[in-house]
């Protein structure tokens, strides 16, 4: 068994995701990307905000800062990164592929 997790860590991950979703709604991120979702670069609450919240909180927990409040703050930061920073540092590509409809 290699699962390294206790109840506080699980709660922290859940709260990180929940706070990211709540702040995502407050800063008016869309809930889902537009269809077809698999080709959409739209930044939404479900993707990539929750992935950023989980990844960032895992990094923070592994660096030694644990706890429920850290999870909540990481979730809030993740939603703010998604809304205000992500499009600037990782923008949508603009050049179309040859032969693509």
């Amino acid at each position: 068994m290699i699962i390294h997790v206790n109840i506080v860590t699980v709660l922290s991950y859940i709260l990180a995701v929940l706070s990211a979703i709540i702040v995502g709604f407050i800063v008016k991120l869309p809930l889902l990307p537009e269809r077809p979702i698999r080709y959409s670069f739209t930044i939404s609450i479900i993707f990539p905000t929750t992935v950023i919240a989980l990844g960032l909180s895992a990094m923070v927990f592994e660096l030694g800062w644990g706890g429920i409040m850290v999870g909540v703050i990481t979730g809030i930061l993740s939603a703010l990164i998604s809304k205000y920073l992500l499009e600037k540092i990782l923008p949508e590509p603009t050049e179309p592929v040859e032969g693509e409809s």
Partner: protein
Amino acid sequence: MNEIIGIIIAAVLSWANFVLIDTWMGLPEKPGVKGADVIGRGVKKRGGDLSGGFFQGNIVCSPDASAGTILGAISCYTIGIPAGGFIAALLVFIGNRLCADPGYAGTSGALSIMVIIALASFIGIPPEQFIVGMLLAIVTIQGIDHPRASRLLGKIAKRMGRYTELT
């Protein structure tokens, strides 16, 4: 469990994980970048399938579920579950966006292999066997025979309704 049997089971699980997720996410439908287009048409010229060629080109040109699967396995080995899987998903997402890819396939691959590794640990398959297994799985797609592998990938794409409309 015997190491060789564990690696074979891990290879099969990894292969199914990344091929099914990548196909479902539309990798065989169209090339995401010019490099994937060139590879797809090159594979077709050598007797392969265009859709399978686009799949092979796309996984070369950006980190899709294949990269998510191997990075997820490595992270679960080095960091543990679930932190390793979550960190791998975030890193693959950043890599995807840098390579003009939306990032759904890569992150799904990293998260799903984390779940698979967690479940497989109950029958005695450790994450390091998934690292070897995934390397073997990717060799069957990219390292042995491109045209034959592309024809198999094309058939899977047809079955899953993701065959390319480009010619």
